[in-house]
């Protein structure tokens, strides 16, 4: 069941997820389409998330956006500073100057980074943790994480877990998607693009998510405002029709349907690397849970069992 509508306001709007938005030329969504999309989402009872470009929007856009409940997602480089300072989510594409940013505990933050840069800047991330309540780290090159990088990632998460532990000891119960989401989940909590959320882009068309607009290799729309939503094979976006994911307990995994389509040619099938990365995170969460319990009672009854695989396809094929 649909719950969210993402409105990408401009071709250059920030990416907040695994995909890269390489469009450099501004192309603002027509105001009529924006108003129509807002109207449609109100009728469908959807929560809107706006993806902003870096430049300041015209006043008529601001007033249209202000006419409905919504969440704002902006880049850390957004020139509209009042918007940036009050946005629900601020996205960083780089660690440059991140230490100078004025974080606050009301906003959520996302860092999009390649794994090598994340490892190189681990100390910067550690330094931010005391300042935030919610941090999403999004690795943009999951497909290339193999071999020694798997071990490096596990080591990074172990150290990050120790930093999180220090914060919890201080009574600062921050959330960081890579480690704490799995602690709190009992079921899959994936992105659910195409199932719970859809996107409308500046061309007036619906997409499963903004990645299917940005990435020309896999781009396809699922209808438009004029003719309506037309998701073909909608079952394939659901966990029930994802043979690997439905038997998996890496509940924090984004289960990115765009990455799936790109790497395995099917929206319902994750790559091996996606599964391994998610299991490294899951197993790091398991270790963190154990350490948290050494400092006090924490989530009684919650267990993350030990597994003998890092890719659930092994379980499926055994």
């Amino acid at each position, binding site marked *: 069941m649909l719950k969210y509508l993402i409105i990408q306001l401009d071709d250059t709007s920030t990416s907040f997820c695994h995909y890269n938005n390489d469009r450099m030329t501004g192309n603002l969504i027509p105001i009529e389409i924006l108003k129509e999309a807002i109207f449609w989402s109100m009728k469908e009872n959807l929560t809107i998330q706006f993806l902003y470009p870096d430049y300041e929007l015209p006043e008529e856009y601001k007033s249209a956006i202000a006419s409905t409940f919504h969440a704002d997602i902006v880049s850390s480089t957004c020139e509209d500073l009042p918007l940036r300072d009050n946005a629900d989510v601020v996205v960083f594409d780089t660690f440059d100057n991140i230490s100078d940013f004025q974080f606050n505990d009301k906003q959520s933050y996302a860092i999009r980074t390649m794994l090598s840069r994340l490892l190189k800047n681990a100390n910067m991330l550690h330094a931010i943790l005391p300042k935030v309540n919610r941090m999403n780290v999004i690795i943009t090159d999951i497909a290339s994480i193999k071999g020694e990088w798997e071990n490096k990632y596990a080591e990074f998460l172990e150290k990050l877990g120790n930093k999180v532990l220090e914060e919890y000891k201080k009574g600062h119960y921050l959330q960081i998607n890579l480690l704490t989401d799995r602690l709190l989940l009992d079921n899959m909590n994936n992105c659910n693009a195409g199932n719970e959320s859809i996107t409308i882009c500046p061309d007036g068309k619906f997409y499963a998510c903004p990645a299917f607009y940005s990435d020309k290799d896999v781009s396809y729309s699922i209808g438009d405002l004029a003719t309506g939503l037309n998701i073909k*094979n909608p079952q394939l976006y659901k966990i029930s029709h994802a043979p690997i994911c439905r038997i998996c307990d890496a509940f924090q995994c984004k289960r990115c349907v765009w990455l799936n389509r790109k790497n395995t040619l099917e929206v319902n099938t994750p790559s091996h690397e996606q599964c391994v990365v998610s299991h490294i995170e899951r197993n790091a969460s398991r270790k963190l849970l154990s350490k948290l319990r050494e400092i006090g009672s924490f989530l009684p009854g919650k267990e993350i069992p030990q597994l003998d695989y890092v890719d659930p396809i092994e379980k499926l094929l055994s």
Partner: protein
Amino acid sequence: MDKIKKSDKGWKNGAAKSITFIVTKDCQLACKYCYLVGKNEEERMSWDIAKKAIDYILSRETEFPEESVIWDFIGGEPFLEIDLIDKICDYIKKEMYRLNHHWFNSYRFSFSTNGINYDTEKVQSFINKNRNHLSVGITIDGTKKKHDLNRIWKGSGPEKGSYADVVRNIPLWLSQFPHGATKVTISSADIPYIKESVLHLYSLGIHEVNINCVFEDVWHEGDDNLLEEQLISLADEIIEKRLYNDYACSFFMERLGKPLDCVKDNSNWCGAGKMLSIDAAGNFYPCTRFAQYSLRDKKAWIIGNVNDGIDYNKLRPFLTLDRCTQSTEECINCDVAEGCAWCQGENYDAADTPTIFQRATAICKMHKARVRANNYYWNKLFHQLESEGKQELYETLSYKKTEEPC
């Protein structure tokens, strides 16, 4: 003594690795029902590509752990490239020996041919050289009328059927492969000729006729009833003349037309993904049906190439496919689901999105007609055997039906 001939389950019971060389996309014929929409004379495999493919496969025993292998050659018409095939097979044998490969002495070379070049010196020389490791199937569709309805020579001008050019090679083929089976394809136009065609093939000495309706959406109103009539008439003839002793027709199977369970009976029908196909460009496919020349509307599903190897991520969907995930609720709940076949390539080509997880159902009413005729066949046969005091014959064929249909 009475017996019931069963269909051959294939060499090594279908458990061998199947590796297919698409040696050419050319064929002398232009069969009307052929699913190869992109046949052409240009895409012929080079020795360099073939050798790279063999080297890649044979140097990775752990990636290909199957006990046995079937080296399959397909076209177009494979025997158009008999020189290349001969070189490929010699190299495979030499390399398997040199590497002490676990497939040495557990391999087959397999061909499905239109039979036109079968008696040529080069083909015969190849057959004699590889006789002990060879299976060859010649496709003949039945009577001259039925065969020539679809299997015509390519080229402009008046249509010219190929029956005479094939049937002349059947005796030679059967002398070399006495258990040779033929594959008959049924599309809408040739339904009226099914019975006479199967009987004709039996009369030619072919004891096993593998026959199937095309999976594409070609069926017209009433085709199901016509199919049922043909098969019931064929059933009467087979039983009356006791042809079931020595001849098999795959339309009639014991395990057909029962409900299926989503837990116990959830296997995929098709072996796509467990096979490997290589084309002239050196691209790897999960099955020949995913090469571009086989696809009407979709992009080829390439899973790697001879230079970079197999991209196993692109195989993952095939390895995880099960019956119920790709089926509609109607198919899942169908009372006669058992034996209803599908082709993964046709599913992909006909799907609303580029997916292998949407089952094409164009064959639905034809399957149901087949089930009705099949029920009639076995009921009549069992009754006849029982009345003759030969119950033990059919009791060996009985099996438990699904106890908890989903």
